[in-house]
């Protein structure tokens, strides 16, 4: 196919179809690369509209970093899945890059945006641009169409990602590979021997048979990302540091809940809130959500695209949530100490209360 290319540029920004655009770009890069043997690469770039040297500096920079972070995590997740099911045998490497562009210029018109994007593409020899149909480069102003026209004047390939809003079908089997299989086998075998308690021939043989079966069935299910030995060790160590902290929090939570429940007046003021946690990826979100459920007066009710819906029992538990100590701890476990330094959810404005939809029907 001559008109396709595996070197793709994707301008990104928050939008309702952002997730699907990332998925489409990664899928296309892999498809074309496996057909042509080209070296596949996807660049996610964020054109910033304002000079970063004004009072909004901090919040804008954070939002940009957050968006690019998300794109990277999602893209890496997608690389481990097989949407067509046909490419399972060959593993096509796709490199993922993220960048912020246009900090050094004033971006006002669609033409400005197009210029910085095209410059970037020319520098990195990218020859295909995929645009998110809901992308709003200039904030709220509808300038996508003029932007696409401007981009199309170059000789690059420009297209809109074909995304629909409700395609969130959960994907189950990811790609199989050796490292997943080895990890799975080791985990299952250890577990079997722990259960058996005796290391005789019989247990070693049946344990190996069992671990083999488990590996065949589950290695593509349990892991989304390919396990990486060094990262695994680091995370395990950090997680072990996290456990005592979590236990302490659980104990505190229980004493306060016990006080509330046994108090004759039942002093509760429940409320639902939406919390945009700065955490992405299945495992880390689950850790955070279950930690929230276990600790002071808060319960994770639902999980939407990028936010958790949390039911809290009292005002003091809401204050605890706003300080964001748990979020920071989970970020420490998964992303390291530097990532743990982050403004609290209250400062970021990440928590909003969820309005009750039908206040009139209370007597029902």
């Amino acid at each position, binding site marked *: 196919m001559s008109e396709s290319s595996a070197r793709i540029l994707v301008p990104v920004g928050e939008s309702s179809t952002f997730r699907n655009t990332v998925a489409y770009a990664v899928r296309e890069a892999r498809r074309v690369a496996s057909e042509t043997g080209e070296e596949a690469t996807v660049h996610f770039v964020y054109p910033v509209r304002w000079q970063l040297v004004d009072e909004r500096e901090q919040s804008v920079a954070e939002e940009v970093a957050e968006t690019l972070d998300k794109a990277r995590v999602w893209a890496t997740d997608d690389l481990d899945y097989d949407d067509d099911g046909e490419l399972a045998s060959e593993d096509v490497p796709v490199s993922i890059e993220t960048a912020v562009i246009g900090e050094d210029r004033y971006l006002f018109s669609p033409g400005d945006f197009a210029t910085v994007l095209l410059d970037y593409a020319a520098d990195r020899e990218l020859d295909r641009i995929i645009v998110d149909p809901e992308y709003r480069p200039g904030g709220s102003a509808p300038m996508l169409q003029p932007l696409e026209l401007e981009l199309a004047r170059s000789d690059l390939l420009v297209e809109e990602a074909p995304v629909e809003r409700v395609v969130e*079908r959960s994907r189950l089997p990811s790609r199989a590979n050796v490292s997943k299989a080895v990890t799975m086998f080791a985990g299952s075998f250890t577990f079997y021997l722990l259960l058996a308690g005796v290391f005789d021939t019989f247990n070693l043989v049946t344990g190996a048979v069992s671990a083999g079966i488990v590996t065949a069935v589950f290695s593509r299910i349990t892991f989304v990302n390919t396990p990486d030995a060094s990262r695994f060790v680091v995370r395990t160590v950090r997680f072990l540091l996290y456990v005592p902290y979590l236990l302490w929090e659980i104990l505190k939570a229980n004493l306060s809940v016990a006080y509330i429940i046994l108090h004759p007046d039942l002093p509760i003021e429940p409320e639902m809130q939406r919390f945009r946690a700065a955490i992405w990826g299945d495992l880390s979100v689950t850790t955070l959500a279950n930690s929230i459920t276990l600790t002071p007066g808060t319960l994770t009710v639902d999980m939407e695209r990028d936010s958790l819906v949390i039911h809290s029992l009292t005002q003091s538990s809401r204050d605890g949530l706003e300080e964001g100590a748990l979020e920071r701890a989970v970020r420490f476990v998964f992303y390291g100490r530097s990532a743990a330094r982050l403004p609290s959810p209250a400062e970021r404005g990440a928590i909003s209360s969820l309005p009750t939809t039908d206040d009139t029907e209370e007597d029902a």
Partner: protein
Amino acid sequence: MSSVDRPVRAYVESTIIMTTARIVSPFVFTFGLFVMFHGAESAGGGFQGGAIVASSIIVVAFAFGIEPTRQWLDDSIFRLLIAGGAAAFALIGLGAMALGGAFLEYAVYNISHGVKYGIELVELGIGATVAGVIVSLFMNLAAGLTNDADGGDET
């Protein structure tokens, strides 16, 4: 209730449940196999182990939905399991008769620990059959549900 007011959005599976299922089910599956293999000396055996194995699969099916589970495990696998389990049982049983013993008389196999391994193989066969039957029953019942929803389409 006021379901009219609420915006219609697609039902999305919960990441939290999915991840928990991902982590827990392989261990449950291993436990099921452990129970199958240790039927000889403790509470357990092929039937119980097969049921545990099947429930680990059903946990995944509940967390992810029926369609992705079908993509993961094809129906033919279960047919193979059911047939293979029964065949293993029959082969070992009849093999003993061929060697001049009674049906399932393991002692006639002249291997060291022949009795023990014979029992375990039979248990594994029973377990495979039980797990296969339970999961394929579950899948077929669920298929009935989704077909009705497609045909009726009322809510």
